């Protein structure tokens, strides 16, 4: 994985010193909250309902044991002993004191981490496939490109005061595990006709109150043009993106209102003017970044493991966990472990300091000192020997991290909602907890099969409800929380935005509604192999409407 050189250390240390000065000025009163706000936002500091919140970047979701242990240390020393992994491969601390934040940033810098541009109207943490360099379907590791983009976008002087936030995701496989098409720029690494590496470029995706699937701007962009093309997109957006209404300020609206072809012409014209400038990537520099992500020292192993098979035969819970949470690795004898940070009745993505320490140990000991954070708010051990799975499972179980629910209905995404967030209009966590408890039986979850349920506590859609097979959006109506249901969304390569199924449900009705939807699916599916979303695509919304709203007469 990437390691800081002297330049990177110098940069983050200078940035910490700069922010320490800004906090000092704020605390002394020399800087008003109004003037401090854009500065703190660009350092990941929000003001929430009850306290400041600090959002720390985990660039493209990759970290090592020492970094995970530092995240635990920060939770223990400066916060309330837990952190919240987010859908953008960040971690949030909900209760830091403002005066402590410069020290937290210094602690992070000591392990080559930062909180730069995790909020504000600038280019945010660049995300990537959490199975990068481990899955068999990959063309190339997306992370070297994400790292190059991270560097280029960090404190880019031209793009710190954009119309709105700007999110970039990179995937390296045809299977989209990073919701790439729902980003402002989505990049898919692929090979061109001449065999060289490059990208399919998508622009203008996003969720929020106007969800849109990104449009393909380029079928193939050569590797060397990565930064020039992104700079062209950002410059056009900075100049022409709307600034009169923050809800219409994302680049998706510019694409929509200008029209794809015309905007593409502007972007390509800008790109033509700068593509042979200093931003053209020299091959040796790309290869040097790539070398940081060289494969670990895998050994030749048989495809099957005797200790694994023996334990599976004797322990049903273990067998179920392996079946659900371990994915095929590109190397024989290894597996990709998904640690579901989704214990029954827990807030999705919340991990305690002790749990983070356990994960750090496991990453160091069993996964070549590497961990990942997924956009589904889980932790991944990307390179585990099949022989080691029993030991890993036992340690996870002791830490209450062995939920065998990866990809199932209780492996849901939920935003922090009204329990923490100043923007929220309804609570998310209690709804997630209630559904999690209702469907706690693993037999039942396995019978239902793959089902992605996502919950947002307001229209800003941090919980990705638009792309949930079942999406739940909490709104406030006449002083009551009301939950709207969307069906059929999908954040993968078959990108789709869920359709609103009908009137919303009260907090005490929503879990029943989810159960009705699930039971309708079970009654309609052609076989156990037809997943929820496949059935929905085949039968459409009507059977679900009929089941949810039985008293509503059929439309003529």
């Amino acid at each position, binding site marked *: 994985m990437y390691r800081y050189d*002297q330049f990177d250390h110098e*940069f983050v240390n200078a940035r910490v010193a700069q922010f320490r000065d800004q906090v000092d000025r704020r605390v002394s009163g020399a800087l008003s909250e109004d003037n401090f706000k854009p500065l703190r936002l660009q350092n990941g500091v929000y003001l929430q309902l009850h306290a400041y919140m600090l959002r720390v970047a985990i660039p493209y979701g990759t970290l090592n044991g020492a970094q995970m242990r530092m995240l635990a240390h920060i939770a223990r020393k400066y916060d309330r002993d837990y952190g919240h992994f987010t859908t953008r491969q960040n971690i949030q601390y909900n209760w830091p004191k403002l005066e402590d934040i410069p020290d937290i940033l210094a602690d992070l810098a000591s392990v080559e981490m930062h909180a730069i541009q995790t909020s504000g109207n600038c280019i945010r943490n660049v995300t990537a496939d959490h199975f990068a360099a481990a899955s068999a379907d990959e063309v190339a590791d997306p992370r070297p490109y994400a790292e190059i983009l991270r*560097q280029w976008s960090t404190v*880019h*002087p*031209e793009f710190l005061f954009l119309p709105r936030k700007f999110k970039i995701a990179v995937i390296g496989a045809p299977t989209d595990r990073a919701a790439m098409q729902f980003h402002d720029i989505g990049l898919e690494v692929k090979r061109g006709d001449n065999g060289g590496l490059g990208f399919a470029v998508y622009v203008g995706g996003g969720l929020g109150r106007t969800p849109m699937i990104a449009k393909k701007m380029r079928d193939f962009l050569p590797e060397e043009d990565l*930064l020039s093309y992104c700079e062209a997109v950002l*410059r056009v957006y900075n100049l022409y993106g709307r600034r009169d209404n923050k809800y219409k300020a994302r680049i998706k609206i510019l694409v929509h209102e200008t029209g794809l072809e015309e905007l593409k012409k502007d972007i390509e014209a800008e790109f033509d003017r700068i593509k042979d400038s200093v931003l053209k990537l020299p091959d040796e*520099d790309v290869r040097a970044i790539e070398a940081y992500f060289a494969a670990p020292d895998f050994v030749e192993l048989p495809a099957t493991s005797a200790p694994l098979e023996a334990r599976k035969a004797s322990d049903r819970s273990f067998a179920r966990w392996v079946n659900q949470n371990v994915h095929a690795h590109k190397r024989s004898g290894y597996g990709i472990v998904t640690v579901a940070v989704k214990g029954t009745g827990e807030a999705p993505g919340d991990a305690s300091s002790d749990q983070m320490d356990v994960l750090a140990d496991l990453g160091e000991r069993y996964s070549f000192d590497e961990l990942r954070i997924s956009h589904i708010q889980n932790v991944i051990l990307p390179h585990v020997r099949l022989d080691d799975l029993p030991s890993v499972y036992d340690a996870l179980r002791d830490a209450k991290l062995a939920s065998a629910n990866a990809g199932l209905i209780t492996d849901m995404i939920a935003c922090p909602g009204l329990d923490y967030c100043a923007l929220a209009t309804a609570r998310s966590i209690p709804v997630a907890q209630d559904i999690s408890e209702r469907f706690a039986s693993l037999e039942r979850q396995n019978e239902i099969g793959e089902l992605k349920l996502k919950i947002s506590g307001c229209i800003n859609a941090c919980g990705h409800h638009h792309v949930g097979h079942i999406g739940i959006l909490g709104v406030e109506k006449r002083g009551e929380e009301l939950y709207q249901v969307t069906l059929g969304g999908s954040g993968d390569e078959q990108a789709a935005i869920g359709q609103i199924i009908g009137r919303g449900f009260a907090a005490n009705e929503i879990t029943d509604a989810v159960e009705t939807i699930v039971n309708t699916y079970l009654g309609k599916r052609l076989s156990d192999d037809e997943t929820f979303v496949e059935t929905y695509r085949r039968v459409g919304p009507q059977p679900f409407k009929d089941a949810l709203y039985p008293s509503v007469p059929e439309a003529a």
Partner: protein
Amino acid sequence: MATLFRGHVAEEDTFIPLEGEQPLPSGEDILVSLSVFEENLDMLRSRNSGRLGVLLEAGEELESLSQHLDLIDLIGLDFPSFADGRSFSKARLLKERYGFAGEVRATGDIRIDQVGHMRRCGFDTMLITHAPTVKSLTEIKDPALFVHYQPALQRPGAAGERATGPRAWTRRTA
């Protein structure tokens, strides 16, 4: 009360802002809006003493001036609010794309924490009203960073920023 800065040095602002129907004084440095500039183009062209500046609002396009840059000594780019970053891109385009050799000046809502970014995008001068920013600049308490992860303004012969970093895209302020 506004103070004009070139780097950390305050200097006298010789440009007189003109509004609407006023006659154009000869011999003075004048600063006009884009609409005044466009309406009085012939008169401005025939003027033979005093320098000419044009102030561009954040929403006005550079293309309107691109044919007349040889007439213009100064272009002011406005920041109507701290959060409106359009003029950063325009400063770069003026210097890089259009090869404008005159003064590019930042005006409006400017804070100390943006000054470094403005310099990197090609602003020569800044007209600053925000008192704490005037104070910080005067005292050379400038929080700008000296290492950069990307090349900014590309200007032939530009001094100050060098590609001495470990990778092609990194820069260091000398």
